[in-house]
């Protein structure tokens, strides 16, 4: 009879610190990635495009989670930071920069703008800061519209699909791989930050800024770094978005976008990277599911669907409310519970 170890034991700190601690987890990840890679071949382009939207949203949500969930600085202007990246990348791309450079450049511009709007965090806390980021949202929207020589103003800005080394990512399936890769990198980056010095400092600022300062965390510098990194990633999401949609207008980066990012991290679970992924998927899928439902109802009972259509926004609101009331830690907690259950399976008790 052989003995199996029950539970996990680590022999080095590094192993305990690893992202995927057991062989089983690594296997799952491998399977998941393989499935993702095969997916565009298996499903239709609508499904792939939804996946693309989700993946872009994941970057936005994960980056907002870094700022709001981890560092505790609530931002109502994240949509605009995505917009800065979108415009930045589009302008660079149109000026002839290669895609990767444009994407990083857009992120960098967004990071700078984000840091500028992060300056008030030096003095403002809580809701006061949130409102000042709302100001950022409105000011940036104004700029998108009025700097027409750069942004095309009201008419918007066309962008070509991304090209790397002559290969054009011009179909949903092709660009999917590109977006998937970038998203994976961004998620990895945030995960890494969260388990190192900077991530801990961010959480420290969130939990008790006075004592964070006394253990040597430079509050302002770290808040700015959080704003900077978060908007950098938001900018990358924006760059992907602009290259994916190939046409950007100021309306795409309105306050509604900021709110839906917040909804994503709330529903996913504040401060949790995996939660942001779930949240992004949930919020992106919600209107699609409702629309599908309404269309299918439309076939059966057209009168009913007329009543249901206005309920869509209500359902979004209701979801938000229900999650906050019944699952305030979001989908991330559900995930943890499921995982804990399977880890001990079949010896769950």
């Amino acid at each position, binding site marked *: 009879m052989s003995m199996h170890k029950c539970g996990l034991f680590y022999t080095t700190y590094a192993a305990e610190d690893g992202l995927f601690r057991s062989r089983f987890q690594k296997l799952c990840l491998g399977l998941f990635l393989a499935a993702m890679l095969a997916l565009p071949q298996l499903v239709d*382009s609508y499904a792939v495009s939804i996946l693309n*939207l989700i993946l872009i949203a994941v970057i936005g949500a994960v980056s907002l989670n870094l700022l709001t969930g981890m560092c505790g600085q609530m931002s109502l202007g994240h949509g605009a930071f995505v917009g800065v990246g979108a415009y930045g990348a589009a302008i660079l791309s149109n000026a002839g920069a290669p895609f990767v450079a444009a994407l990083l450049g857009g992120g960098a511009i967004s990071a700078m703008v984000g840091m500028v709007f992060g300056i008030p965090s030096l003095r403002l806390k809580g809701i006061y800061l949130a409102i000042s980021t709302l100001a950022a949202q409105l000011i940036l929207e104004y700029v998108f519209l009025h700097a027409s020589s750069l942004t095309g103003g*009201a008419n*918007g800005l066309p962008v070509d699909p991304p090209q790397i080394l002559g290969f054009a990512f011009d179909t949903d399936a092709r660009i999917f791989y590109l977006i998937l890769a970038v998203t994976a990198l961004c998620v990895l980056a945030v995960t890494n930050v969260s388990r190192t010095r900077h991530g801990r400092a961010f959480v420290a600022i969130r939990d008790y800024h006075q004592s964070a300062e006394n253990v040597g965390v430079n509050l302002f510098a770290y808040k700015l770094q959080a704003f900077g990194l978060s908007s950098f990633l938001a900018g990358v999401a924006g760059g992907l978005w602009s290259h994916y949609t190939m046409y950007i207008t100021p309306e795409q980066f309105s306050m509604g976008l900021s709110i839906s990012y917040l909804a994503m991290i709330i529903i996913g679970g504040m401060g949790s990277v995996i939660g942001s992924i779930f949240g992004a998927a949930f919020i992106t899928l919600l209107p699609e599911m409702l629309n599908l439902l309404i269309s299918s109802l439309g076939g059966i009972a057209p009168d009913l669907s007329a009543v249901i259509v206005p309920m*869509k926004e209500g359902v979004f609101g209701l979801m938000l409310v229900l999650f906050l009331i019944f699952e305030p830690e979001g989908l991330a907690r559900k995930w943890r519970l499921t995982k804990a259950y399977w880890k001990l399976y079949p010896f769950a008790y």
Partner: protein
Amino acid sequence: YKVGLLSDLTGATSSVGTPYAEGIKAYVAWLNENGGIGGEPVELIQVDYAYNVQQALAAYKRFTSEGIVAMQGWGTGDTEALVKFVAKDKIPVFSASYSAHLMDPAKAPYNFTAAADYSTMGRAGLNYLRETWKESRAPKLAFMFPDNPYGTAPIPAMEEYAKELGFEVVGKENVDLKAIDATPQLLSLKKAEPDFVWTGGTTPSTAVIMKDAQKLGMTCTFFSNIWSSDENIFKLAGDAATGHFGLQGAAIYGQPSAGMDLIRKLTKDQPQMTHYVRGFVSAMVMCEGMKMAKAKGEVTGESIKAALETMRDFDPMGLAPAVSYFADDHRPNLSVNICTFKDGKLEFVKTTVLERKKEWLGL
């Protein structure tokens, strides 16, 4: 044949988006009962995108994966965002965003509209006002519009044309779509004493402007574009609206024509907004293109576009000025219905027809 219908039923523009979509659906339903496209029905797939670009994009992807051959779009943001997609996928789109640059096939090869662009409307309005101007001095003109893509779109073109016609432009002011007060802007205009003021917002914001202007005792005449002067203007502005002008791309409910009789029949004499009529026309023009394509062979996005580009002076049952498209010019016409606000009603005045000038295309 499947046709996508992207509408705003719940979002920021839902108050006009809903009747527009109703118009489209009414026409298609009627068409299907009367033979469809050469015997085949048109199946509308409606999606409410709540005026959100991302949802519009997702909806469009769903349409394409369901195999639509054409699409009825709606607002500025979503139409613009889809320009490149529809071009690539070869799906002709009729939208209710009448930006001039969508009329240029070089920039937006698969975009069509059933009504003249905002710039043309503005020009037509100016043209009419200039014609009726009796005094010897140059008429003074001012603009009031929301500071958004839709509001700013026609302004440069109108300014240029106004100069050409001998207007003196005396002011430009922004009034937000959600404004509840336009006094500061009007105060600033009042100094310049304009004779005519362009209002390029929505009906509520136009109503605010008209009321505040009346309150301030201003005597200027307002002329407003297609989205800012529907039947609600009297409800909101009361008699402050009387005597001003609105520009329309389609008939007003009740304006006699064959098409209107049909609409009356379909709606059982329930009055409909002009947006309904315009949606009706938009669907009609699109279906006409599909019929033409069918007559030549297969109905695909590409063939519909080709067929539409051979369309000459198609009369949408008298509900709107005749429509023609060209391979290098997607302006349906350069005709604009001028109407005035009188006795609590919109009243048709005349149709102004401008020359199809090449240099105006896309501007």
